C-alpha cells in the first residue's frame, strides 16, 4: 500500500487534495471525515493542543486500517492523513477520505476508519486549557491531571 495514502504530517491537510486522491471513474460516492480541534470539552476551554505520534508505527497502523477496509469493503479506496504538532481551535487534525461505487460502503468504511484510529493508532493529544492547566490522556477523556503531570508512583 502506498505510503502516499496514509500519512502523518506537520503541515495543514488539504481536503481538496485528499479528495482528488480517491476520486475514480468507477466511483459514485466519496465520504470525508475531518476531526477538528474543539474549543470546549466538558465545559473546559482549550487554547491549543499538540499531537504527538509514535510516527513510524502510526503510519503502519494507518496502513493496517487501510488493509482492513480493503478486505471488508473491496470496492473502496481509502486515504488518511493525520496532523501532528501544534494545532489551534478549528484546525483539522485528521482527514479520512473513502471513495466507492455506491454510497453505503463509503459511509461504513469511513466510520470504521475513525473508530479504529481511536483504538490502535499511537497518537496522543496534549491540551492547553484556558485555566492554565494541561491534560494528556486517552480519547475517553476520563483521566485528567490538573497539575499538568500524572501522579507518580502507585501500584501496578
Amino acid at each position: 500500500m502506498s505510503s502516499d495514502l496514509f500519512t502523518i504530517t506537520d503541515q495543514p491537510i488539504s481536503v481538496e487534495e485528499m479528495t482528488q486522491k480517491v476520486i475514480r471513474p468507477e466511483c459514485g460516492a466519496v465520504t470525508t471525515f475531518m476531526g477538528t480541534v474543539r474549543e470546549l470539552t466538558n465545559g473546559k476551554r482549550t487554547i491549543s493542543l499538540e499531537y504527538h505520534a509514535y510516527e513510524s508505527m502510526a503510519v503502519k497502523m494507518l496502513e493496517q486500517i487501510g488493509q482492513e477496509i480493503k478486505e471488508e469493503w473491496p470496492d473502496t479506496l481509502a486515504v488518511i492523513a493525520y496532523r501532528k504538532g501544534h494545532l489551534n481551535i478549528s484546525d483539522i487534525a485528521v482527514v479520512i477520505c473513502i471513495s466507492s461505487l455506491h454510497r453505503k460502503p463509503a459511509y461504513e468504511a469511513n466510520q470504521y476508519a475513525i473508530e479504529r484510529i481511536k483504538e490502535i493508532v499511537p497518537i496522543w493529544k496534549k491540551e492547553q486549557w484556558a485555566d492554565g492547566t494541561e491534560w494528556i490522556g486517552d480519547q475517553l477523556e476520563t483521566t485528567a491531571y490538573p497539575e499538568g503531570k500524572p501522579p507518580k508512583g502507585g501500584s501496578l
Partner: protein
Amino acid sequence: MIKILFFARLQEEMGTESIEVEKAGYTVRDVKEWLADNHQLSTISQTMVAINEDYANDDDMVNESDTIAFIPPVSGG
C-alpha cells in the same frame, strides 16, 4: 541490548523518550515488572505494548536489537 520507547504520560514520568538496556530474552511481562520495580511507573500495566511497531502480548519475547514501545491509551481523532 533492547530499546524501550515511552510515550505521552509515560514519557513525562520517565523524563526521557527511550532507554537502552540489556534485557534481550525477557518477555513483555518481564520488562513491565522490571520497569515497575526500577522506575515506579504508575500506569505501566494499563498500557499496550508494541515490539518493532506491532502490538504484542505479555508472553511475547523481546529479542536482541528489538524495540519495545509502551503505548498509553491513544487519543487520536
